[in-house]
């Protein structure tokens, strides 16, 4: 048996045991009845005590959605989704939007503790001087449990800096002018089927506003957890960096193991004004389903950033290891002259997972620049597709793009596909595309093992080496987590 075959067997032996976030929290839920109609949307809107304009906005999106059909151009296959068989609202039975961690159900806090998410603002809330615990690497966390945000930490520290970081449902109440000004301006309700659905039924998510000239004093993070059965999660995130502002935002996701497929259709909108910068990092680890492809999250996500200001920058970094299906194209629309868009991605698929992911870079402003680095790793019987669009409009003189797509195959039952679309309508633009596909070669495995590494260590080392360009873009704490996650996703014996 060749080294690669043995590796393949090791990889294929990964089953549910490898997913250690698969437990369920026993908690009383407030569930909307199954099904989707105007009444359900009104119910969501009233539960959230929303203003009339938002309800209208939702209903308009819903009307649009009813005219749309599910897209099928991606290289993914799934059984038909029954949109009437889902709960569109699920919240732990407590008043949503607690003022402090003390108001949060202890069972929820234990859930996040078990997930390793530090909701450690307790000390501050208890009256400890924030200055005494600042410094080091602090991360402010917004935790979203099914449909609602359960806790947001470090709010006071952020408030001092003028940064708004809160559940979007709360932003609708407290900062309606900001929400109304930006919501749906990057991803319109009519953008696509899943974005329209999200606009109609979104329940929570994070809202960030960083005012002019402010560098956000800490990393902001949202942790998404799907818990309830037969629910969809439709979160909506909106991040605005005003002129000269900077913010780094992290997003993590997990879900219990179930033999049903659960739908996750999020929308993320980013806006940067002149000289502003948003760095958005994701470690996506939704339950991927078992070895036979039973269960797992259907992850249909629309993420887009608009570089509205000159010299502004939006950078997407994603490590995608979870979900049965990933359909996700974090994109940048480069309006501002000299604005910069970046996309760094590692997508791992194993067993029966399917990923169709990539980005869109739309160059509008002069001398706009974009960089795309995509690393796809396929194992088991999975399919991994990079799909990317680089579009240069006629006015984007001097635009530049560099795209690098590398695929790594483990075993010979998996697939890697690269689908680049390039449309350049300005003769001064430079667009470069490089793509490679490689296998973990027998001689690489043998070389490592001859030096004393086990097969698992060798695969780990080679995969991490393959992803290095992307992993180094992640904030330190996330990079470590991501490396571990790659090991778990590919190896089975770990975790």
């Amino acid at each position, binding site marked *: 048996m060749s080294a690669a075959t043995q590796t393949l067997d090791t990889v294929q032996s990964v089953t549910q045991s490898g997913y250690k976030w698969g437990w369920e929290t026993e908690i009383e839920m407030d569930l909307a009845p199954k099904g989707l109609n105007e009444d359900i949307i009104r119910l969501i809107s009233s539960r959230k005590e929303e203003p009339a304009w938002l309800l209208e906005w939702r209903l308009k999106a819903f009307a649009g959605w009813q005219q749309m059909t599910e897209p099928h151009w991606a290289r993914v296959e799934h059984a038909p989704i029954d949109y009437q068989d889902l709960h569109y609202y699920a919240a732990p039975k407590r008043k949503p939007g607690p003022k402090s961690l003390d108001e949060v159900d202890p069972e929820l806090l234990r859930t996040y503790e078990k997930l390793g998410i530090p909701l450690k603002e307790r000390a501050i809330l208890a009256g400890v001087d924030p200055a005494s615990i600042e410094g080091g690497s602090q991360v402010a966390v917004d935790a979203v449990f099914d449909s609602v945000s359960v806790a947001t930490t470090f709010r006071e520290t952020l408030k001092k800096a003028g940064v708004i970081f809160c559940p979007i449902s709360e932003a609708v109440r407290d900062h309606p002018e900001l929400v109304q000004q930006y919501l749906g301006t990057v991803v319109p309700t009519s953008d696509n089927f899943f974005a329209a659905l999200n606009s109609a039924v979104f329940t929570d998510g994070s809202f960030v506003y960083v005012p002019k000239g402010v560098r956000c004093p800490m990393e902001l993070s949202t942790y998404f957890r799907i818990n309830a059965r037969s629910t969809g999660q439709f979160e909506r995130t909106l991040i605005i960096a005003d002129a000269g502002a900077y913010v780094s935002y992290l997003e993590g996701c997990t879900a219990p193991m179930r033999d049903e497929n659960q739908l996750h259709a999020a929308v993320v909108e980013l806006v940067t004004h002149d000289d502003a910068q948003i760095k958005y990092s994701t470690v996506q680890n939704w339950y991927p389903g078992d070895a036979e492809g039973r269960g797992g999250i259907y992850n249909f996500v629309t993420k887009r950033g608009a570089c509205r200001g000159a010299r502004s920058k939006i950078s997407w970094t994603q490590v995608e290891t979870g979900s049965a299906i990933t359909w996700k194209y974090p994109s940048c629309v480069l309006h501002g002259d000299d604005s910069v868009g970046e996309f760094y991605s590692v997508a791992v698929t194993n067993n029966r997972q399917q990923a169709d992911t990539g980005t869109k870079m739309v160059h509008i402003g002069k001398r706009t620049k974009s960089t795309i680095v995509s690393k796809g790793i396929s194992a088991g019987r999975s399919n991994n597709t990079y799909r990317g669009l680089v579009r240069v409009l006629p006015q984007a003189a001097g635009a530049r793009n560099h795209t690098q797509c590398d695929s790594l195959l483990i075993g010979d039952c998996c697939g890697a596909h690269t689908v680049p679309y390039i449309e350049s309508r300005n003769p001064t633009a430079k667009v470069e595309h490089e793509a490679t596909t490689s296998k973990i070669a027998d001689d690489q495995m043998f070389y490592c093992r001859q030096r004393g590494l*086990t097969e698992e260590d060798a695969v780990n080392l080679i995969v991490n080496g393959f992803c*290095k360009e992307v992993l180094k873009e992640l904030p330190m704490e996330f990079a470590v987590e991501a490396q571990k996650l790659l090991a778990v996703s590919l190896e089975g014996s770990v975790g």
Partner: protein
Amino acid sequence: MLEIRGLSAAIEDKPILQGIDLTVPQGEVHAIMGPNGSGKSTLAYVLSGRDDYAVTAGSVTFDGRDLLAMAPEERAAAGLFLAFQYPVELPGVGNANFLRTALNALRRSRGDSELDAVQFLRLARAETKRLAMPEDMLRRNVNVGFSGGEKKRNEVLQMAILRPRLAILDETDSGLDIDALRIVADGVNALRGPDFSALVITHYQRLLEYIVPDRVHVLAGGRIVRSGGPELAHELEAKGYAGMLTEAA
């Protein structure tokens, strides 16, 4: 320390080794010479456990243990090191990280404590300096963008850091200029001692002027056809393989 008895091996049903008998006692350096296609590299791969080769007969013991029953990483842990004829590139994997992972795997398997990054770098820098290699060798990715000579020197650096009990050098001299050859030889000679044995596989006698072997074996047609002292290498150089093989026949 290394006992090879009647070893035969094939690749894809094609017999390559046809009954090798060879003993390398502890502390000795033996050279294996032979024409192209005689089975030299196959012997190196079979001893280190590459699974493209099927052992069809014979036995190999290493310190009394059945070598052929061990996985490649177990052989490495037991102290066997192969300097590859064609060292493999590992894109994105730093040389220092690779070596530390390897060294710590070996130390773990022997029950020794692992070295942290600082301890390891101190050791690695000292060895790099001793072998007159540029320090950036440690920072670069394993063999990526290395010249042929640099790759071979990197093998010797790995050997110096991993400190094997038996090193197999598979044509480490091929493609080296005279300066690089000296560095490689110095690296091997520095390890020589009662606890170090080596099997130096080479096509040419040149390397053996710098690494003087205790014994020389001539491999042809998958068998050892002659064995002798270091003078055998000189005889080979004078007569050529064809001449010697005619005599042996």
